[in-house]
């Protein structure tokens, strides 16, 4: 099993954190994982993306050219990477900020992650909602382990914030699970 994930959006949306989160859960499950951020003069609102590879085997280049899964947070990210989508690509798109290109192949999960996050009264959890949708739509990493990782990485935050994150993760899972 080798799963190549490309995640893209804008600085501040939690693009890199989402990638890191998925790679950490994979490490917890004793899988091999790589996480490669785009680094440069990063700033809030600037283009942000990262590559994550999860595998049972040795991982070669950490760069993802042809993703098995594309996770996009906004229109600019979608427009930049949609040419890489093939018949079997899973596309998880934040429908609040992404207008779907119906001609595009691939299996799509369109979820209004920003609206859902606002409903939880914490816009920051948008990436956690996207993570939940990914875990439900593609069974590469285990949902319980993901919740564990969420708790341990948020360890020092106040309990209300941790609960909102877990609710966000579950909301994302539920939404994608229904589709």
């Amino acid at each position, binding site marked *: 099993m080798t799963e190549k994930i490309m995640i893209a959006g804008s600085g501040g949306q939690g693009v890199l954190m989402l990638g890191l989160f998925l790679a*950490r859960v994979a*490490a917890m499950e004793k899988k091999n994982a790589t*996480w490669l*951020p785009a*680094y440069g003069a990063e700033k809030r609102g600037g283009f942000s993306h990262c590559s994550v590879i999860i595998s049972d085997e040795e991982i*070669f280049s950490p*760069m993802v*050219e042809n993703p098995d899964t594309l996770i996009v947070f906004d229109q600019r990210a979608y427009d930049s990477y949609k040419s890489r989508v093939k018949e079997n690509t899973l596309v998880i798109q934040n429908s609040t900020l992404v207008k779907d290109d119906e001609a595009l192949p691939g299996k799509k999960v369109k979820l209004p992650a920003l609206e859902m996050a606002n409903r939880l009264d914490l816009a920051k959890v948008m990436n956690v909602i996207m993570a939940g949708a990914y875990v439900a739509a593609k069974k590469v990493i285990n949902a319980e382990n993901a919740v564990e990782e969420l708790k341990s990485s948020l360890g020092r935050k106040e309990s209300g914030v941790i609960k909102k994150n877990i609710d966000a993760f579950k909301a994302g899972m539920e939404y994608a699970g229904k589709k």
Partner: protein
Amino acid sequence: MSGKMLMKGNIAIAEGAIDAGCRFYAGYPITPQNEIPEYMSKRMPEAGGVFMQAESELISINLVFGASVAGARSMTTSSSPGMSLMQEGISYMAGCELPGVIVNVMRGGPGLGNIAPSQSDYFQAVKPGHGDFRMITLAPSNIQEMYDFTFEAFDLADKYRNPVMILTDGLLGQMMETIELSRGRKPLNPRPASEWALTGAKGREPRKILSLLMKPGALEQHNYDLWKKYDEIKKSELRYEFNEKEKDYDCLIVAFGSVARTSKGVIAEGKDIKAALFRPVTLWPFPYAELREAAKKAKKVFVFEMNMGQMVEDVRLAVQDDSKVEFYGRPGGGLPSQEELLSFLRKKVK
């Protein structure tokens, strides 16, 4: 920290150094190696060592020089332009036969260049500084090796009383990968500093450590002695990765560092081509004889690098048949993709 964990390449270098007993670190900020001094500023005091932010790379290497004279396991890290500034100090350390670990997380050049990954300092690493000296150069290809090689570099530096370089790039420095730390592992300390360092001459004969040898013939003799040591290193410390089981090949790919891992992907993906990988792990000493042997049965030898052709010169010396050698490289921070390398391979094989 134990078991499988996700770690950034730069942090793995810092951890490898701490575990090897490095207790003096000096550095100056430069991307893409900034995580190392940042992390060391916190970790080094925790480990009972000294962290110093220098005012330039020139000072960093001379701080390491000073710490090494006094017998401390010491390290500095930088990226390409900073490494140029360190060349004088590295030569002084080699001349004085002082151990020390120097890490270059390479970025695009020349000049101030950019902050993207590159392999453009191969020449500078394997043919360093001024004067007739050599430096063991290790090129990791994954994050496990970033940790392991840095750990081992300290023992190598001590064993030969010589600077050792870890030559890596922004891709490996910035990426994270699952690794397993071997916390139980102890450094070998093959040549305790107490035997040679300047620690105060109380109760023993004074020692001198210097590289200025003005007496007629003295410097010439010093160079002969150094080369005896280098010949010993060539015999004992050569490292390379070549899967002997992949005997059935007619293309041999030669690549180091991050390009070597991309090349493995090229071989796995290009099932229509019978290819094998030869990866020099020590760039100096370079595995000339072993590569020559491996290249004998290959119809073509492909060299892939993130520069305009540096290691390829050593490959040509090894293979001794220029008509066989094909080169593909990307300079200035250009990252060759697996698809790109595979299509070059296919084009040349047909």
